[in-house]
């Protein structure tokens, strides 16, 4: 199992996943509700959290819960949690928190927003919509590189590895080979 696969193994609990989804519906463009984007976003979010230090991971989860429950104190929410707010109220609460100049919750929500938005724009459908298609471009310029410079590349790669260690210079100290030491 690769490190990346290992990171993907980490999962949020069901309540936290629900908060992330509702958070994404407010933080991301409306297209987040289309097709399989939301599922991919949550998977990416979990994989990213899995790669963060444990302390940061708990801070993010704590921030999500505080944001969700904190809505109860927001007048327009009339005692409801963030996940239960209608779109307009959820957006107003989100804006109100981000507009705070000070306080841990505002900073925490700002960072979580960054992570969620990051995960949205990592989705292949979203990249495609933006016209960001690096894979085809990379394949094309990689071919061009090899066709134009193949021989020079092979020579350069061999030179950077140095003389064959099984050859006559094998295991000779640099000074003895006349190199500067």
């Amino acid at each position, binding site marked *: 199992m690769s490190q990346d696969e290992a990171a993907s193994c980490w999962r949020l609990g069901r309540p936290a996943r629900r908060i992330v989804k509702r958070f994404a519906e407010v933080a991301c*463009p409306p297209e987040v509700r289309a097709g399989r984007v939301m599922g991919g976003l949550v998977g990416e979010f979990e994989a990213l959290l899995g*790669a963060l230090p444990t302390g940061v991971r708990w801070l993010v989860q704590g921030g999500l819960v505080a944001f969700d429950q904190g809505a109860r104190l927001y007048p327009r929410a009339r005692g409801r949690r963030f996940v239960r707010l209608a779109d307009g109220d959820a957006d107003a609460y989100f804006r109100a928190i981000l507009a705070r100049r000070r306080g841990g919750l505002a900073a925490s929500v700002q960072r979580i927003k960054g992570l969620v938005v990051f995960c949205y724009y990592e989705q292949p459908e979203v990249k495609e919509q933006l*016209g960001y298609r690096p894979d085809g471009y990379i394949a094309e310029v990689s071919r061009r590189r090899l066709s134009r410079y193949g021989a020079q590349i092979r020579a350069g790669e061999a030179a950077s590895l140095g003389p064959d260690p099984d050859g006559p210079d094998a295991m000779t100290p640099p000074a003895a080979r006349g190199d500067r030491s």
Partner: protein
Amino acid sequence: MTAGIPAGLVRESEVAGDLRVECAVVIVGSGAGGATMAAELADAGIDVVMVEEGGYHPTESFTAQTGRALRTLYRDAGAGVALGRPPVLFSEGRCVGGSTVVNGGMSWRTPARVLERWASKEDVAAISEREMEPYFAQVESRISVALQDPETIGQDMRLLKAGADAKGWKIIPNLRNQLHCAGTNNCTHGCPTGAKRSMLVTSIPRALRRGARLFADCRVERITKSARGVTGVEGRFTRPGQRRGPSLSVRAAVVVVAGGAVQTPALLARSGLRSASGQLGRNLTMHPHAKVIAFFDEEVTGWKGVHQAYQVREFADDGILLTAVNQPPSLIAMTLPAHGRELGRLMAGYNHMITAGCMIEDTGSGRVRNIPGLGPQVFYQVTDRDADRVIRGVAQTAELMFAAGARRVLLPFDGAPEVRDPSALRDAISRPVPRRSLELFTRHLMGTARMSQDPRRGVVDSFGAFHGVPGLYVADASLFPGPIGVNPMETILALVTRNAHNLIEQRSRHGI
């Protein structure tokens, strides 16, 4: 051994139980410093073991998926934070090849004025431009330092140059460690062609071909020592899911620490090693960076073409460099001051954006401390002078973008509006910008085990030997006595090559 894995490389999946290994020199880290040291020592026939905390990811595995790159190639998914006012975000590579796998590939020699300062004010021996010349020449040859082939220069870079030319500002093509770079613009996700001559494709295979061994996925927990000096290192492999794996114990006459300016002082300190200078973990410098996002009418598609073909050096005497660095949509979007529909509207212009920025040769300093339960933590205070220069650098970058034809520019000040012309820019900059509102980041961490011949000033001597602890060396950007004002990789390579040759000359003293 798995097919496709170089001989001498061992990953956690190939280790069934605890391992005990003996060698002449053990090197902690396989980045710019560690891999260079390993290759030089292995060239000299010395038995070397490298221990790398990150995984082995070959060239064929690199893609344009940002999330995957952050998870596999960077420490903590690239989300390091230096605590201070404002905080500075930083990222460090954590993989075989270290940060050289994910850097932009800029290869600049240490400026002569910096070397002079190190010699005269910091008491570092044999560091003049003339004495360093052969080492710079050697590393430039090893990693193929050259200018870009013209067909790889993209529209974002052409616009940067057009803006600088329109302003009459000095702009120079970047020297990069690349062998006919294809211009994939994937440097920070790992070069998918191997054209960027990182340690992964140069010094590491070079060292392995000469008999060196490399243990990947293994975190060194402490350096072992006796009354006579160091005796080796102890570490532990990390299993998937960050579970503890088998232990690794390496006995060696010489220990070289090359984990970078955050991890190196942390490892030395948790191993109980102290510097009489009191400078271990202190003197951290980091070249703070800030970026602007400029929107153009024309399509830019900044992801087509090489990463950083040019640098604007007009303000280099003031310690400010400007350039453009394309970023993938996910990384740009996460920093935009918008959400919902407004975020979608801004991002719809992704192919019309240029991300440009400034880098400051800093005057502030910070510290790395081990905090129980949290591990190494970084503290850094931006000085008033540096904050002023960041604001000036941001204004210069935005001005440059307008000169190149930008229609609007977003500034990196928390809550700052976008500006639509140079006069609005002047208005925005003329208002006080609170230091805490600056959005800063960096990849250049330096100076936490500084060199000096004087043990009262430096943690290590002029050649990286830890004062007062026989057999212990440092070989990374921790060595720098101060910031250098340019991308640090080539300075690390040249210094470590020089220090490796010095160690080889003294090998009999260490019995290796």
